[in-house]
């Protein structure tokens, strides 16, 4: 199987080159990069003039609800949604039912993932047994089986000793610990950002300190053990500062931010009439917080953008705000939302920088064998994402591959879309009637 991509603007994972480049994918591997490549024997040829060809986007954090909560999402619907959203790789979170805390479930996910025709699915495993926060899960066996991250996401690891042990124990496994930063004693009953939104709504406030204090705790443990730690869905200015200080003092800490925290603000909860669609953990934050996250992207404090795609059934979301589930589904519009917002904040950072947070950034946080997913180089896997930075489209959640039927972006027109996703050398998604197949 040979696919030739002609005349694309090449982003190789680090830099965006000006000229037109051809890329040839052969049997799931990139075999040649150059100009005017011979199309002899290519099964498919695409003309990518004015489009960006990038390493396939990697989502470090999404919830595919498989096993056990398939009414919300399953591996196939999630995988197809990921491809439609421009992601070639999804890291699925282990807070399922039962939780993914053993090697058998890791193997189940990898095997079922192989059968899915959308994004590549790679699993994260629980840090603690039964995700209960008491004892270490069998991280060694899960690492061998193919787990790419360890996390109790959905919950923080509140027991500081357990988190320290997990860092120490995982040091030889080459699999990173991901912490969901939240001090639960500060967020009990909290619903919205502690600030304008909590003040006006009367909903309990979720203070920024609940996140930043956990980052400082984790950074201190990382310093102590010398083992890296990753913080996911970091959402506030204070947390950005915590990351900056920790990085500056030599801690091996990394973080990701989500599209909703980069594009939406707490006031939308109020102006939206307390619609559950805006309810998420951590909550939508202030304008200053959103600005600080973009500043973190610009200055390199942010290491990746991850969706935290959290699909729910409408019956769990279409409720009064206080009763609605925490979670925003976004896989199929996350990249567009980011490109749109980036354009609105012109010159805030380079497009290269932004694209690296979907590619080489997250790839560098995965185990060694997956790092080549973040680059386009001869010999690297043929996982590719094609971007049309000028294409405009209305988000229509009713047409999603995902089972989720509610998203804050529904009905919004976004500019800048992924138009093709290639996984293991095969076209997993192509936007209908968009780019022309030459052959």
């Amino acid at each position, binding site marked *: 199987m040979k696919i030739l991509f002609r005349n694309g603007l090449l982003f190789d994972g680090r830099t965006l080159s000006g000229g037109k480049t051809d890329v040839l994918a052969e049997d799931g591997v990139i075999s040649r990069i150059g100009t005017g490549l011979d199309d002899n024997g290519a099964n498919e040829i695409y003309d990518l003039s004015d489009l960006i060809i990038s390493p396939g986007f990697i989502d470090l954090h999404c919830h595919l609800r498989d096993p056990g909560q398939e009414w919300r999402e399953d591996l196939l619907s999630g995988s197809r949604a990921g491809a439609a959203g421009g992601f070639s790789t999804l890291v699925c979170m282990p807070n399922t039912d039962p939780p993914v805390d053993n090697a058998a479930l890791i193997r189940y996910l990898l095997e079922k993932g192989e059968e899915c025709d959308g994004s590549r699915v790679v699993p994260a495993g629980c840090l603690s047994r039964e995700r209960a926060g008491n004892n270490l899960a069998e991280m060694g066996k899960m690492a061998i089986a193919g787990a790419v991250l360890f996390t109790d996401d959905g919950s923080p690891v509140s027991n500081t000793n357990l988190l320290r042990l997990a860092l120490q124990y995982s040091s030889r496994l080459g699999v990173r610990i991901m912490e969901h930063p939240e001090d639960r004693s500060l967020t009990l009953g909290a*619903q919205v950002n*502690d*600030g*304008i939104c*909590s*003040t*006006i*709504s*009367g*909903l309990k*406030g979720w203070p920024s300190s609940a996140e930043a204090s956990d980052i400082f705790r984790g950074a201190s443990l990382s310093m102590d053990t010398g083992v890296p730690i990753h913080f996911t869905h970091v959402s506030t200015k204070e947390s950005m500062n915590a990351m900056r200080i920790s990085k500056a003092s030599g801690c091996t800490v990394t973080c990701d931010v989500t599209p909703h925290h980069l594009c939406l603000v707490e006031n939308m909860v109020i102006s939206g*009439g*307390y*619609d559950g669609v805006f309810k998420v953990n951590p909550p939508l934050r202030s304008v200053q917080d959103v600005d600080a996250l973009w500043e973190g992207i610009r200055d390199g404090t942010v290491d990746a953008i991850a969706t935290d795609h959290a699909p729910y059934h409408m*019956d769990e979301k*279409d*409720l*009064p*705000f*206080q*009763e609605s589930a925490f979670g925003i589904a976004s896989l199929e519009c996350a990249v567009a939302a980011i490109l749109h917002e980036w354009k609105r904040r012109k010159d805030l950072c380079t497009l290269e920088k932004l694209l690296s947070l979907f590619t080489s950034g997250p790839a560098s946080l995965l185990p060694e064998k997956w790092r080549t997913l973040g680059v386009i180089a001869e010999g690297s896997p043929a996982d590719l994402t094609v971007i049309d930075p000028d294409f405009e489209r209305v988000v229509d959640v009713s047409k999603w591959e995902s089972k989720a039927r509610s998203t804050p972006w529904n009905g919004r027109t976004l500019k800048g879309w992924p138009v093709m996703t290639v996984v293991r050398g095969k076209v997993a998604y192509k936007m209908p009637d968009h780019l022309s197949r030459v052959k």
Partner: protein
Amino acid sequence: MEWKQRHVLDLDTWKREELHYILEQTSSMDELLDRPIKKVPALRGKLVVNLFFEPSTRTRVSFELAEKFLSADVVNWSASGSSIGKGETLRDTAWTLEAMGADAVVIRHGAVGAADYLARKLKKSVVFNGGDGAHSHPTQALLDLYTAWKKIGSLERKKIVMIGDVLHSRVARSDIIGFSKMGSRVVLSGPPTLMPRSVDALGATYDPDPRSAVKGADIIYLLRIQRERQDEGMFPSLDEYHQIFGANESLLKLAGADTIVMHPGPVNRGVEIASNVADGSQSMILGQVRSGVALRMALLFVCLGGVRQ
């Protein structure tokens, strides 16, 4: 004037002229309460459902009286002894009520946004927010405005000092909006742990010391202290609260002889207010209760009185 508020959810969308209009209508209803026969046929044939998910005798009885004085058919639907107890969603309850032909639904719910949610789901019925979580209690704010307006006249450039648990108070949130829209200045006081984070976003200011806050106050408005806040550790003890933040005669003296005292009820005597202040000549507490019935009659009549088909 053309009445544009379809539902009564929150006062944030109201204009001052709308507030005035309701105050004047309330005044006409107030006269009705002095008559030997208080019942008028204005809402004959209209079905009003009082949907109460939280026990609230005062608000429910006040609405019920208002509905009955206007001759509406009244149904009380409470969380206990109904399908809600069996896990029915608010959406299904809403549609059930509409299918039964409710012209209006008064909802009291512990969750913020429940009234907004109901209003989104109902195609025909008018929704009255009888209190949603700690968010909004518009009818309480309107009856407070009416009580104050009747007593002291124009509320422009008046100083309202609100003391107590603002953080958990829907009454405070709605009253701050209401009094501010009428041109009053609202100063909040109480323990810092019971204040919301961004007081300025409410258009109010905060003075931690009630003794300095009440100087020059036209109205002292006391908020109810829930005993469970002490159990949650929001302040050390009820006794300490009363000593520092409670309204007693010496605090009232600092304010002035013309200052009126208001409280949404029910009163915790000896906590946020001393008995002799609650029962004293400056207290408007019972006037507020009476105003509540008149105000709710005015709102029901204006929203259901017929113009809109």
